[in-house]
């Protein structure tokens, strides 16, 4: 086929049992309604520099869903939830974050922290901690995550916190401050797709997509990603305003199984695209090494039995 002249396909299927995507242990992490914000305990860091801090809700969703929204954090502080965990189990956690900023104001910095406790209600000293820090440009929802945080021996609970550090602007009382929107907060057992700044999780988290730009003076670099919906997203190089590769996933479960992936190219840079069905551990890797704009890639994942096969080029 034409696209194979510039796209090399590498397929590997690893023999592991089929498993379902891990459930989110944070039941209100999707912030679908204003009421769920009440399920989050918010602690305000009131200082001389910070005039106000509040948690609220806005009907704007990180993936464009008309029937959902986000939690709004205004000012310095954090919101948290305590959940039960099992010792020795590895967990992924993260969220989608949108940082608003304004000229003349300091841009808030956002991170997410996971602390493990021996106490079942997250009391006492923490046994271990993990941190996910957002370095994203303001103005768009960006995913952050920290992966494979193992609950230490004796851990029975974990506190998931989203923290906003905002120096504030003293003497400007009543002025709308830069705010932070938080959506799709998750804490779940490791092994599924965990969206972060470089990873798209499509088709309900069943597919994981990443891209590396090949060549260049510094070697291969990982492409940042932005997710537009549950089933679509794109990768970029310099700016999120300029997509380089777009990808979408179409569920074919009604017509024989699997997920169709379609990748469109808006770049002539050499790239390596990896898409994995995390529930079946089937992975496809595509290369554009020619320096030409790649033809559209159309493929189906997850329609093959999960059995051992040799890696094939």
């Amino acid at each position: 086929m034409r696209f194979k002249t510039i796209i090399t396909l590498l397929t590997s299927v690893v023999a592991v049992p089929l498993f379902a995507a891990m459930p989110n242990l944070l039941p209100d992490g999707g912030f679908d309604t204003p009421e769920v914000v009440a399920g989050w305990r918010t602690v305000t860091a009131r200082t001389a520099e910070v005039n106000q801090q509040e948690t609220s809700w806005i009907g704007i969703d990180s993936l464009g869903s008309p029937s959902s929204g986000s939690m709004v954090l205004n000012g310095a502080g954090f919101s948290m939830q305590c959940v039960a965990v099992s010792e020795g189990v590895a967990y992924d956690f993260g969220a989608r974050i949108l940082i608003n900023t304004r000229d003349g104001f300091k841009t808030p910095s956002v991170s997410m922290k996971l602390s493990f406790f021996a106490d079942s209600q997250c009391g006492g000293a923490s046994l271990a901690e993990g941190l996910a820090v957002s370095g994203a440009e303001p103005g768009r929802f960006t995913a952050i995550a920290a992966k494979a945080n193992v609950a230490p021996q004796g851990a029975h609970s974990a506190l998931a916190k989203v923290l906003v550090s905002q120096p504030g602007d003293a003497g400007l009382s009543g002025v709308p401050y830069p705010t932070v929107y938080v959506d799709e907060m998750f804490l779940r057992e490791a092994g599924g797709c965990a969206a972060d700044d470089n990873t798209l999780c499509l088709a309900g988290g069943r597919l994981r997509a990443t891209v590396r730009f090949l060549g260049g003076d510094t070697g291969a670099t990982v492409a940042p990603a932005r997710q537009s919906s549950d089933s679509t997203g794109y990768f970029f190089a310099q700016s999120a305003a300029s997509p380089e590769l777009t990808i979408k996933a179409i569920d074919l479960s009604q017509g024989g199984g699997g997920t169709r992936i379609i990748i469109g190219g808006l770049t002539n840079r050499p790239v390596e695209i990896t898409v994995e069905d995390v529930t079946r551990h089937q992975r496809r890797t595509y290369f554009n090494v020619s320096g030409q704009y790649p033809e559209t890639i159309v493929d189906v994942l997850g329609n093959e039995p999960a059995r051992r096969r040799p890696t094939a080029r």
Partner: protein
Amino acid sequence: MRLRSFALLLFVLVAVPTFALPPNLIVGGSFDTPEDLQKWRITSNKAFLGWVGLDSQSRPASGSATVFGSLGGYRSQCVEVTPGREYDYGARLMVTHGARKFAGDGTQAYVRITFWGDSLCRYGVPVGEAQTEAVAGPTGRFVAVSAHAQTPEDARGAYLTLISVVANAPAASAAPTLFDDVFLQERGGCVPDEVTLCLAGGSLSASATYFDASGSAHQAQVVHLSTTSGYFFTDSPDDAELTIKTDGAKSFVIGGMTNLGLRITVKDWTTGQEKRYVNESPHFLSPIVDAFSAQ
């Protein structure tokens, strides 16, 4: 060229002399800062205006106006208009998912233009009025609305009003609607709407027609990703079919994720040049890399 095998460039219209894009007559319509709200005026004591740092095209240092409440909206400053002249007006808006205290899903939002017989919009009664299509919420994303109006012969001034109301129940509290990039301009520039992308400061526009299984033509709808990029969709904004990005004011790249029959039109509004491309189903659209010539 490879891209021409499936994406066929149909024709390029003869260029017309370079002309300037019409300026936006509305001041403060991009709501870059909360101070821009001061250029707008309330029309009802039950309507409210706020500002959020979320921009319709994800500009990092800009935001939007939030209109909520009931029985009214917010109106712009009065601008001078010329009788008999044609104008385009509109905005990008997002009707949010409403909290319980709002009527939520019944909210509709639109932009209204009101013409007055004096240039200050103060004396007498309005001499004309029109509005964009009302967008029913929640929309989940920003959508562009626009309309075209001809100034009445006795009109000298006009203002725009940003309205968010509950359909058939104007006294009910509407869900907050975000308005951004409000514009009123003389006809002759790119006008964004639900099927038209305006890119590169309005110097380029892009639209796409797709053909269904029976061969019927439909306009693809659009989502702006930034001031320089956006995508087209057919059934759902969650499902992009093709994406376009610009590099400067003349160059553009179109990438496809569709095997639909397509007719794509890109226009350079500074010269009047227009380029059309066709994709024949069931081929998947090949990348299109092209540029308008400088005039």
